[in-house]
């Protein structure tokens, strides 16, 4: 089997520093936004006592879900033994850590008391899914670091499969934990369902791979490395499978709720008369994040392969946009629908009981969220500059021979 050569990127070009500076500006804006919210209190945000988790949570949860999914590319190579994915494994691990850190920073900076992070690290209520998640997230970073080290240290390469298996199982548990933050909440009709865990796992596969495809292409093209259409289209078709899985779990989630008369109200709200949430569900999640990417990656285009590659790139962008809409509908839409304390009664109060809660994201919240994305970008950018995460070539020649070897073996 041909040996894969990895190398650092030069990272001395004007474009490299411009990109780093741009990302740095976003990170600094996020810190400024966090300070502003902290100093004045959360009333300066769009959040209120009805929608207590706002835009920062949407960003954070999206990033955390995508993080676990980004690791799948490495798992496919080491756990499921697909040689074509082996050269992609290191970047997969790096991106997973970067996205998770981006998400966690947003989550922490949106706390009412981020200065008490040490309290969260020293006081645990082990019945809390949040407390489990602290261990799951920190453990994930630790495991992926070891996994990366075993991939990079050739003398220890034979441990990679075991480490990959541990990382894969851990990430499944991690996303189960993230989905269960919502799924275990009996008070909220939009969430209270065990399907949230597998739905979130499917979402992570999809969002994580979309993010991975875009980062891989940007890194290869930005550093002048060849990337052939074989690998792009393979990743594209895989993305299609994951997108279909998300649509499937979404359909089951809503059909199950529609079947039960007690949940008709919340389903009508999300699917038909919920205003922005209905729009984001159908236009954002289903069409932009579901149907269009499926068409783009599975269409039978007889034209040149460049068009197909562009289709995969566009599909990845759409999956991220649609995925963002999906997380927004779940997190914000789920809180906007009023609590059903008195079934069958019309309810009103000065605390907005019985009415759909209003929420308009504010600039500081968006700045904080984008800062998390930028931080993830900076970590990847810095990582590929100092360590050998990227293969020197992903050309068809570099990918295909492995592919043929597998076929011959089989």
């Amino acid at each position, binding site marked *: 089997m041909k040996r894969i050569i990895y190398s650092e990127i030069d990272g001395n070009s004007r474009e490299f520093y411009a990109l780093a500076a741009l990302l740095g500006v976003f990170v600094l804006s996020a810190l400024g936004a966090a300070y502003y919210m*902290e100093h*004045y*209190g*959360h*009333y300066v945000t769009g*959040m*209120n*006592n*009805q929608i*207590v*988790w706002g835009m920062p949570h949407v960003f954070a949860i999206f990033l955390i879900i995508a993080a676990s999914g980004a690791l799948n590319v490495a798992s496919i190579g080491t756990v499921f033994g697909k040689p074509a994915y082996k050269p992609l494994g290191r970047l997969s691990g790096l991106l997973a850590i970067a996205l998770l850190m981006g998400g966690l920073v947003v989550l922490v900076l949106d*706390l*009412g*008391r*981020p200065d*008490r*992070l040490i*309290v*969260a690290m020293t*006081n*645990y*209520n082990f*019945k*809390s*899914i*949040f*407390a489990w998640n*602290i261990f799951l997230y920190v453990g994930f970073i630790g495991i992926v670091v070891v996994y990366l080290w075993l991939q990079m240290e050739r003398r220890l390469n034979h441990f990679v499969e075991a480490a990959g298996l541990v990382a894969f199982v851990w990430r499944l548990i991690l996303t189960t934990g993230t989905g269960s*933050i919502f799924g*275990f*909440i*009996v*008070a*909220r009709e939009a969430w209270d369902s065990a399907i949230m865990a597998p739905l979130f796992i499917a979402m992570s596969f999809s969002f994580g791979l979309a993010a991975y495809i875009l980062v891989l292409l940007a890194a290869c093209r930005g550093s002048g490395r060849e990337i052939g259409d074989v690998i792009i289209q393979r990743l594209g078709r895989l993305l299609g499978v994951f997108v279909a899985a998300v649509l499937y779990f979404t359909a089951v989630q809503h059909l199950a709720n529609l079947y039960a008369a007690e949940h008709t109200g919340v389903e009508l709200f999300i699917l038909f008369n919920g205003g922005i949430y209905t729009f984001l569900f159908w236009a954002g999640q289903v069409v932009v994040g579901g149907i269009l990417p499926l068409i783009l990656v599975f269409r039978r285009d007889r034209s040149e392969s460049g068009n197909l590659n562009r289709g995969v790139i566009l599909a990845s962008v759409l999956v991220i946009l649609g995925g963002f809409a999906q997380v927004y509908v779940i997190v914000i839409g789920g*809180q906007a629908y009023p*609590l059903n*304390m*008195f079934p*069958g*009664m*019309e*309810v*009103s*109060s*000065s*605390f*907005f*009981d019985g009415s759909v809660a*209003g929420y308009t994201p504010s600039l500081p919240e968006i700045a904080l969220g984008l800062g998390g994305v930028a931080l993830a970008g900076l970590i990847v950018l810095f990582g590929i500059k100092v360590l050998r995460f990227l293969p020197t070539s992903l050309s068809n020649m570099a990918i295909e021979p492995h592919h043929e070897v597998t076929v011959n073996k089989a």
Partner: protein
Amino acid sequence: MSLKIKSMDVAETPGFDPQRRSFLGAAAAAAGVALAPGVMLYAITKSSPTKARALDAAASSDVRWGMLIDLGRCDSGCDDCVTACATENGIGGHGRPETDPQWIRKIELTDPQTGNSKSLPMMCLHCEDPPCVDVCPTGASFKRADGIVLVDKHTCIGCRYCIIACPYKARSFVHELVEDQKTHAPRGKGTVEGCTMCVHRIDADRQPACVEACSDTGGGAMLFGNLNDPDSEISKRVARYASQQIRADLGLNTAVRYQNL
């Protein structure tokens, strides 16, 4: 009791000194006198648990504080309980209803099938199995042995998961700086808060402010007491008349119950 055992130990010790013994006896007596008020209060708590516990005694699970709210006596236009709570606990708003905290609020209910309407006060219902306590990552949300659900303001990190988990919308996030706090009801920007059942009053053998106001100037709809004491007024009332828990289907066993709902 422990003092007595100690003096017996002394008596059995070789090199026993009668003078020292009499000193210890006097000291024990003095300690007994000093402790007596506490012991007294504890004794009362045991025999008649609607009374306060001693300040140096832990809250006891022999007691479960609860309320019964009779909607037949709760007028739609009356919000004396809300006003009393705000005054007692220093909860002033900033004129921003969406972010201003509310510890207790009046809810108006109308049955669209019949047109029948009702009004009720809603606050933390002090569940036996509170979801807010389950989800709190740091344990800041906790339940006292006597059933009162509280937030430890020192360990709350402001994650708002408890607000998400509460089926009664009973908690508020403090969205801005708090001024003119009451010493008995500490609050803080960036933390979560809610009805404490006026725990400071209960510990001083007084009724919660809302209950007191309701009986003084309102309709006398709110009854407070120990649900674990079969002889308490509240226990007799809930045994005699039908009362309901809100969202009883969730199985949380709330300490606040409603009559004529």
